[in-house]
């Protein structure tokens, strides 16, 4: 694809439900990042993938959050037993993993937990 694609663009879920957020990175980009952005706030790092492995998952806020990446491409961020404080925009970015290259962001998934 032409850019990083995230789906769904908007998700409203009830408290306690599980949600899955999807990221399709740019083809050939080996590095993939997930960030969370609360209303009017900065980028909170969640997890970083290089290929299918996650060298840095230090930003995941609790064990309700998990992420995986398969085939060195699509990544899924799963939030179990969602809470209202999980409401935010979840952004995915990818970059070509070799060298200091530009990170390309998707438009994000706006998650609202009611």
């Amino acid at each position, binding site marked *: 694809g032409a850019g990083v694609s995230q789906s769904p663009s908007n998700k409203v879920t009830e408290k306690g439900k599980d949600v899955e957020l999807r990221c399709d990175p740019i083809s050939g980009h080996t590095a993939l990042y997930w960030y969370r952005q609360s209303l009017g706030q900065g*980028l909170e790092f969640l997890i970083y993938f290089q290929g299918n492995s996650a060298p840095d998952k230090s930003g995941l806020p609790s064990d309700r959050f998990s992420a995986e990446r398969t085939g060195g491409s699509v990544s899924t961020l799963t939030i179990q037993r969602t809470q209202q404080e999980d409401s935010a925009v979840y952004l995915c970015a990818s970059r070509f993993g070799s060298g200091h290259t530009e*990170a390309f962001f998707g438009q994000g998934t706006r998650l609202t937990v009611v």
Partner: protein
Amino acid sequence: QQQVKQSPQSLIVQKGGIPIINCAYENTAFDYFPWYQQFPGKGPALLIAIRPDVSEKKEGRFTISFNKSAKQFSLHIMDSQPGDSATYFCAASRRDSGAGSYQLTFGKGTKLSVIP
């Protein structure tokens, strides 16, 4: 642990003014410093970037100043326009020797408003 500290959190300037956004880092392993611009409802996009072997880089009205000894860098926007109103993020990148890949760390962001 915040490795890149950004200030101010928000900034209001009049059209034609020169907003300045500052960032400081701690880890001397960082060796690439990009700035990203984010408009409402969009993901951040690369604006300009600098490597530590130069002290200044200009692209159009945007300038990065870099002070390696102080471990600080800043973004200046010359002749600012209302269309520059956005959130700006500084970032720092370093090679993760363990994974053989490149980590990217962002500051908290600065919301800039340029008043006509």
